[in-house]
């Protein structure tokens, strides 16, 4: 239940009373945000009194008579505008002349009520203004939350990018100080480790670019007929150089092409992330199974591994930005912590979802569903 303050400024006592009475028990649901709204009414007899009350505590909505004994309704509007007070004004005017309407609008009035008006007309006008106020409040709240999320994201990002830099810097210092001894093998290892940290930092930056393009809706999406099975095959080929030295066998289970209208690059990102994870978090000599299936309206991608698996709590947070499961088993596996968050966002963009079922030390199965009939828009909306 949200309560909005309404101030009624009119010099006629009968008008003040009847407006207050009409609004007293008036509640309604603001349809856009599904919020129950009630009103609290206060009155002012003159423009001067209204200004005083507005300065003390601005109402959400002001019902303002145009013709007042002292300063006029337009003077009150001017005061509100000059002080940039955030509120909506509905002008009440006995002679609804165009001229008054135009002048009041210039001064920032939101709506008009022409005297005489019925209680229904009054409620209608107030309701319209109230919905506007509520929607604006919600929009502000969302913008605040979004800023907050963004800030958190940036601070975690900074931390994640600092880690590889710190490691590389450590190696550089060691080389500069000449404190690494004279074993060439040690130098080879140092260079190898620097290269690995650099490669993953690059991977993180590339993932980050994918993510910001997805979230900002700036990535140009091109929708064509995509064979998901063919994309899966490519993803498996891409992962082969990492899988082969560790004797990880990869299988593709699909007996016919599975087509859907999609952005080929996005399907590729989903499959590459799932397959490369399945290899990365597998045990040596393990296996990866990629299954592409379809129902009438859905494409189902599932990727199973025989790897380290996860606990339920670990699964629950897995799809968030920068979440990397940290334990002894994952300690020396590098990653950006963004891959699965990207997969989930893309799945949402196709009206589907990304989920995981996992058992520690046995393996995990990631399932992504994509709706075939999902009508994609030109840009991707924030999911």
């Amino acid at each position, binding site marked *: 239940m949200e309560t909005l303050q309404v101030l009624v400024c009119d010099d006629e006592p009968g008008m003040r009373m009847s407006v207050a009475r009409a609004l007293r028990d008036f509640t309604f649901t603001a349809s856009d945000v599904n919020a129950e709204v009630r009103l609290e009414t206060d009155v002012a007899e003159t423009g001067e009194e209204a200004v005083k009350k507005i300065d003390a505590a601005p109402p959400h909505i002001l019902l303002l008579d145009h013709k007042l004994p002292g300063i006029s309704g337009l003077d009150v509007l001017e005061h509100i505008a000059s002080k940039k007070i955030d509120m909506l004004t509905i002008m009440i005017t006995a002679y609804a002349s165009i001229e008054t309407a135009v002048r009041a609008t210039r001064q920032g009035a939101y709506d008009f009520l022409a005297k005489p008006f019925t209680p229904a007309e009054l409620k209608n006008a107030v309701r319209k203004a109230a919905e506007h106020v509520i929607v604006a409040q919600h929009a502000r709240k969302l913008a605040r939350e979004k800023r907050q999320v963004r800030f958190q994201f940036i601070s975690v990002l900074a931390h994640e990018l600092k880690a590889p830099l710190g490691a590389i*810097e450590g190696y550089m210092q060691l080389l500069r100080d000449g*404190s690494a001894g004279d074993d060439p093998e040690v130098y080879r290892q140092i260079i190898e480790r620097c290269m690995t*940290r650099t490669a993953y930092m690059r991977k993180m930056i590339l993932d980050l670019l994918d993510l910001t393009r997805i979230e900002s809706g700036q990535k140009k999406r091109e929708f064509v007929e995509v064979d998901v099975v063919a994309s899966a095959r490519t993803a498996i080929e891409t992962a082969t150089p990492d899988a082969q030295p560790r004797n990880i066998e990869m299988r593709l289970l699909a007996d016919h092409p599975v087509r859907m209208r999609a952005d080929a690059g996005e399907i590729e990102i989903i499959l590459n992330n799932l397959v490369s994870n399945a290899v990365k978090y597998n045990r040596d000599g393990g296996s990866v199974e990629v299954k592409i299936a379809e129902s009438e309206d859905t494409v189902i991608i599932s990727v199973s591994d025989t790897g380290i698996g996860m606990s339920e709590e670990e699964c629950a947070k897995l799809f968030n930005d920068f979440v990397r499961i940290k334990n002894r088993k994952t300690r020396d596996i590098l990653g950006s912590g963004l891959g699965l968050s990207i997969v989930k966002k893309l799945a949402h963009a196709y009206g589907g979802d990304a989920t995981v079922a996992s058992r520690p030390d046995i393996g995990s199965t990631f399932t992504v569903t994509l709706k075939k009939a999902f009508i994609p828009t030109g840009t991707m909306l924030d999911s």
Partner: protein
Amino acid sequence: MSTKKTIMVVDDDSDYRFQQKVQLEASGYTVVEADSAEQAMEELEKTRPDLALVDLMMEEMDAGFTLCYHIKKKYPDVPIILATAVTRETGLEFDAATSEERSWIKADVLLAKPIRFDQLRREIERLLGIAK
């Protein structure tokens, strides 16, 4: 140095561990590595190091503190250098400069990460009583 001294390096960051190991070995020490407090405890059953270099923040936020406590309980004479990035990351200042601080931080020296190796080597030589 008559016999090679053994230093235990406990840190969950494999790069950092490797860097310390390389430099300590080049300076003539034997290095025993552990990537967690848990592994360090196992290692301590087998080896009595001459000195331990312990990272404060590992998986559990204060694993380093507990480990220091255990090392001191098992081998009261083994000096400990506690390395921490806490000051850099949180701005929280703390030290093991006074005996009162050392009585609750079970370490002999507290060094802020990033540690300069020459400083680390000086501290090690001092704690091991190696004359320069």
